[in-house]
């Protein structure tokens, strides 16, 4: 019995084209990281926060700035330092004379009141300041002196941290890490891309986007995202993948049982579902397939799984564990015997 209708082709087509244009713009401005651009766009379409991790100078900030410019969204950047206070981010009340003889405390919004907040080197701020972002990332609100203020929509935190120079840093607590949709690893580009940058970009300056996304188009994208259909078998697959990240789970792999201390949270399952929807939208499909889940499972879960010391000794990271799990878990749950295989009919 059918109860709903999936997006029709003519309804999906504009959103898919918009996504493709955004990606095309990003790929033309930032060279050599098409997959990273795709994942960042998925993060934006999922209205999730993205943690970019990589060495300095790899273009993390440029990536965030480019997204903001293409989408014509308000963009703020905060360089996190150890002496940065919560008020420096969220805003503060200032005593202000509003009329002669009359003074009152006026709220001065912090940089968090924006669409895209670039939290540069977020792990350099103190835990107090880091935790100030918890409410904003989860609820998109700021509560000060009993007054809750909504942040502008959409609101994304694109944070960056580098894995070196860890002295004087404060690793993000798991609760805050869990609020990031993705943790994306920004790697070096190859020599060809570097040559292209040097040859075509004067002092590395980024070119201006040739096309920008309008606000209503962005809203339309979000609405289309909401209508991407998630079939039950795919939802079950997501649930099984997340459940299997826990030790001694029914479908846990050998790597999970050996190396994982804590598995992914339910928020990971929600994040995978949302990201898979965005992936399907970008691919121009009205429904989520298993390939969408597989494409986003690794960046969603790689910061949500806590490995034990044995994994450190054996140089096994979360990416290996998640890839192993996704590779071994049967998507459909058909549970065919090991000696029976399916082959695409000729």
């Amino acid at each position: 019995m059918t109860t709903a209708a999936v997006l029709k082709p003519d309804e999906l087509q504009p959103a898919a084209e918009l996504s493709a244009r955004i990606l095309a713009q990003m790929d033309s401005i930032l060279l050599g990281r098409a997959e990273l651009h795709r994942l960042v766009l998925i993060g934006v379409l999922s209205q999730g926060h993205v943690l970019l991790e990589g060495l300095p100078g790899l273009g993390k900030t440029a990536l965030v700035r480019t997204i903001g410019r293409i989408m014509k969204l308000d963009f703020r950047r905060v360089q996190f330092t150890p002496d940065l206070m919560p008020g420096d981010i969220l805003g503060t009340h200032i005593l202000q004379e509003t009329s002669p003889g009359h003074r009152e405390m006026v709220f001065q919004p912090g940089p968090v009141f924006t669409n895209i907040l670039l939290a540069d080197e977020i792990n350099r701020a103190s835990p107090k300041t880091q935790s100030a972002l918890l409410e904003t990332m989860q609820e998109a609100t700021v509560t000060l002196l009993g007054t809750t203020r909504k942040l502008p929509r959409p609101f994304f935190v694109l944070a960056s941290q580098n894995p070196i120079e860890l002295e004087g840093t404060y690793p993000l607590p798991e609760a805050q890490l869990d609020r990031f949709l993705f943790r994306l690893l920004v790697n070096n580009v190859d020599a060809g891309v570097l040559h292209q940058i040097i040859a075509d970009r004067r002092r590395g300056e980024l070119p201006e986007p040739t096309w920008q996304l309008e606000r209503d188009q962005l809203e339309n994208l979000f609405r289309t995202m909401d209508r991407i259909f998630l079939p039950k078998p795919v939802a079950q697959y997501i649930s099984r993948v997340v459940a299997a990240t826990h030790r001694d789970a029914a479908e846990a792999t050998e790597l999970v049982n050996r190396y994982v201390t804590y598995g992914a949270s339910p928020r990971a399952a929600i994040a995978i579902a949302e990201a898979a929807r965005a992936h399907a939208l970008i691919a121009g499909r009205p429904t989520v397939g298993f390939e969408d889940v597989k494409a986003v499972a690794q960046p969603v879960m790689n910061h949500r799984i806590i490995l034990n010391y044995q994994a450190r000794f054996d140089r096994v990271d979360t990416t290996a564990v998640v890839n192993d799990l996704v590779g071994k878990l049967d998507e459909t749950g058909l549970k065919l015997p090991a000696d029976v295989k399916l082959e695409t009919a000729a």
Partner: protein
Amino acid sequence: MDAHQRALREFSGRIVRLLAFRTALRWATVWMLALGVLVLLARTMTRLPVHQLMLGMFGLVPIIAAAVWLESRRKPALSAVRAELDRHSGSGGLIMAAEQADVSSWAGRMPEARPPALRWRSGRALNLFGVSALFLALTFIIPDRYTALGFQRPLEIGKIVEELSAQIEALEEEKILKEDKAADFKSELNKLGKEALGKDPAKTWEALDHLQQSTQDLAKQAAEEAIAKMQSLAQSEALASAMSQLPDSTAGEVLTKAAQELASLLNAAKLDQGLLNASLPPELLASAKDGKLSSEQMKELMKAIGASKEKIEAILAKLENLRLIDAELVGVCKNAGRSPNPGALAAFLSENGSDAIALEILIELLGNGGVDRGRGDAPLTWKDPSDENDIGFKEQTLPPSQLSAMKDAQLVGMSKAAPEVTGEKATALSGALNAAAAGGGNARAQVILPAHKGAVNRFFKRDN
């Protein structure tokens, strides 16, 4: 969407069929292995016929049925099959979504509905099935002699049964054993041959011994009878021979008496009775009884007696060949059939023809050793009694020893020499070891050094 529905049903049915076949094959493999073991056990323990054991093959039918039923019960959920079809066709969730939502607007863009092919790596399963089938077939066709365990293997009594059978047939052939009794013996023998098991050999051996004893008893009885008849035939032959040697001048009364005596001997021998029939022509016996035996009749009678002897000897030889009687008995029989000295008998008849009692005694005596080697009842003669010198022992009283001296006596050795007698002085000496002393150079004796003397004395608490 119809094409996808059809593909879905086809794919689902294909999965169920393959899994049912796979499970049935595995169960059949296990069943055939188990059945093979059971057949082996049954053939070794119970000796059930193979065709009855083959009925176990019908067990495959319920096993296959159960496998099909189980796999149809475990049929994968249709949503899972649909998901698999979606995954393989690369429809990106559209086929899955069709179960819950209207995807008709995407009908034109749906990929072709082609269910994936199922590939079963069946090599191992088929090999195991083949091995189990071969094993089962072997358990059926393997000969009984390889399946019988030691304690149930038939007793190896074939040779004994064969011997006994030949003995029974020979006894039956020679009329020593009656036909009905022989049939009973044969029946019992056949039964023993078929049913004799190593499990209970004593019973079989006992029955065989009984049969063997019965045949040997009969044969022995026949042999003893043959000895008696051979002796009578030999005496009769001797008498007949003596009669034929008598001169023509012999009185007719003597001949008549001798003929009557001959008839009496032959009648007393009861040749036509007993186990061995060695009867003579009755008209000759009647003529002999009347004392009117002509010379031709006499010759015929002697010929008949010789034939009877030969017949008895042949029977005994046959019995000996079949190991029913021993060679010694056959020898005795041959000796009994040897005719005594007919010349002496003819001379006696010439002199004392009318004395029938004496003739009878003479015939008896002539059969016991012969006149040329002396009488058999000659008295035994004894020479002088044996000398007891160097054999008997002469008693000699040894001198009494002092009891007090024996109290502290120690065994220092043994000698074969006789104890030395010292006359009046009754002292206990040690004969050939007189000079020997404890520890006096004997390697086996403990040497007591002077330093130890005190300790040894204290140990034995001796008072000097």
